[in-house]
């Protein structure tokens, strides 16, 4: 669900949350075991990707020891395979666009009018100076394929119903994490995701706040990624607007559209 897709795919995050929303927990058969329930939710999330398209206006704030930056961008996505992000502000970087189509990532630099396909060597680079890497962008991972999911808590907490998931990577899964823990509140609102390394030390934390209504759906508008090893640093993504069901064509996410002026 929202985890793993976190990276630069803030949109995906939200969509996955939407997917959760659309796959009601309550619809479960009564004789369901917790692991079946977890699997069902994860599968529902993965399946809900198909076809859904969206458009968003986003503000990203990056805080590091060396610099602080804020940028506005607009983003489109379709399913799990396509996303396109274009920078609107600052002016210096206006028009810089990133396209993800399947396993490929392209960056367009308007100043030199060049489109670069990111090679595996460039994947470790930071995306737009944030705490997300290009690699985060392409790592496609179906949770059920890569993780053993379990529900560790399901009940009332903090004045609402919350469910905790624990995801342990399968031995052969190509994931760096040792474990992922996530909490989902009632209405399938993501609350927090914690990524652990193999020694079960926290590696990074993703928190979801400021629940608003977008296109009739309740979703958190503010996502914050905090790396555990860099105190005081974080990347924050704020959704100013978000629309669904635009019926975007696959061809919208082509290399040519990288250069197109923002619409």
């Amino acid at each position, binding site marked *: 669900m929202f985890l793993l897709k976190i990276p630069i795919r803030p949109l995906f995050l939200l969509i996955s949350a939407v997917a959760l929303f659309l796959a009601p927990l309550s619809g479960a058969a009564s004789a369901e075991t917790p692991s079946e329930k977890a699997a069902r939710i994860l599968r529902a999330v993965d399946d809900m990707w198909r076809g859904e398209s969206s458009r968003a206006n986003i503000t990203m704030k990056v805080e590091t020891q060396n610099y602080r930056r804020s940028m506005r961008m607009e983003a489109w996505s379709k399913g799990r395979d396509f996303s396109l992000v274009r920078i609107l502000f600052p002016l210096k970087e206006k028009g810089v666009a990133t396209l993800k189509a399947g396993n490929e990532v392209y960056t367009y630099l308007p100043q030199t009018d060049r489109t670069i396909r990111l*090679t*595996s060597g460039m994947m470790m680079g930071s995306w737009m100076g944030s705490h997300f890497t290009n*690699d985060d962008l392409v790592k496609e991972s179906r949770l059920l394929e890569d993780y053993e999911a379990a529900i560790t808590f399901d009940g009332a907490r903090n004045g609402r119903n919350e469910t905790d998931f624990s995801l342990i990577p399968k031995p052969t899964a*190509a994931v760096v994490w040792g474990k992922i823990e996530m909490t989902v509140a009632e209405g399938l609102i993501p609350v927090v995701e914690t990524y652990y390394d193999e020694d079960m030390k926290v*590696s990074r934390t993703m928190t979801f706040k400021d629940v608003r209504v977008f296109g009739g759906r309740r979703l958190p508008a503010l996502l914050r990624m905090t790396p555990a*090893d860099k105190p005081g640093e974080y990347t924050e993504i704020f959704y100013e607007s978000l629309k669904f069901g635009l019926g975007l064509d696959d061809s919208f996410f082509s290399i040519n559209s990288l250069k197109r002026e923002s619409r």
Partner: protein
Amino acid sequence: MLIRMAWRNLWRRKRRTLITCMTVAIGLWVASTTLGIHDYSDLKMVNTSASMGFGHVSVEPLGYLNKPGFDKSFRAGVEMTAAILATPGVKGASPKIIGPGMIGTASKTVGGMLMGVDPAAEKPERNVFIRAIIEGSPFTASGASEVVIGRRLAERLNLKIGKKLVYTATDAKGEIVSDIARVRAIFKTGDENVDGGTILLPIGKLRGTLHFGPDDATVVSVHVGDERDADGVAADLKVRVGAPGVEVRTWRDTQPDLAGTIAMDKSFHRLFNTFIWLLVATGILDAMLMSVLERKHEMGLMMAVGTSPRTLFLLVLAESFLTAIVGLGIAIVMNLPWYWFMTTKGIDLSAMVPEGYGVSGVVVDPVIRMVLFKESVVRIVVTFFSLTLVAGLYPAFKAARVPPVETMKIV
């Protein structure tokens, strides 16, 4: 007769002759030692660099050298390896998959080089990484999800034996692929770059990750017994396993930096040796000229009683030749224990050389040893004898031109 006379003449001035002979001997000693040390360090560097992946000679797909990557591969089955191993001079051959990739853990992701090796064909003496393992043991199964990493990389990625890493690369079709492997061993070559970005994977596993065929490789590294045979073996291999789209290269192509460094080193050494030879030659010239000049009276007398200028000329040449022979004899006696010491023990400079000092990515051994190739010895001896004779020419010429009557007046 001439030789005996020359021999006797030589020992009329024992001290001077001995000093001249010592000059010759020391010159020879310095020349052979510097040459020996250079040859040894070059040999060592070439062999170390060969064991860093590409061998002395490499068989690789066309264009691989210009841009090593997983998009260029070829079938390197048992038949090819067998054909390579049957080539005279070849000591070992192993298929490898070498290319750039990304290595990541939860703490960090870094770029590096992925090297897939065949556990059965990869011998420690031909692979510096396996040789340099300081913790754990090399993998044995070709399909295991195991990895051998450098110590610096282990530190950067916070890895220990048994921990997992995810490696990502661009496969033959340009797709980005990734897989997981657990650390089986950690090596330390001493070179920061190498230790910080190289991982060894079993070739079978890497083939699977990259969607390669069961015999596919990006390079077959060939090791020869004697590095100087590399060019001959490469030419031979071109005939034996050459095919369209397959290239055969020597370490000089795959490690151009190192080849350049060594060529530079060799020419510098030649220049240095020329100075030594000039010094030695001047020493001989000086001694011979002295002995001719002080015997002018005697030579005039010999001419007066019928010795031909030619005989006198040859006599002096014979004297300088004998000086050379004696000098060579002393040099051999002096050199033998030295050479034995330098080939077996060597001088350990590790206290003075910073750890991990390397040239062109090849770690330099801090122990100085020497090796004398047959052709080096022949070259030194031939150069040396011709120089002695050349140095003897002027005094001999001088002796042949002694005017008998005038010189007899000199007492």
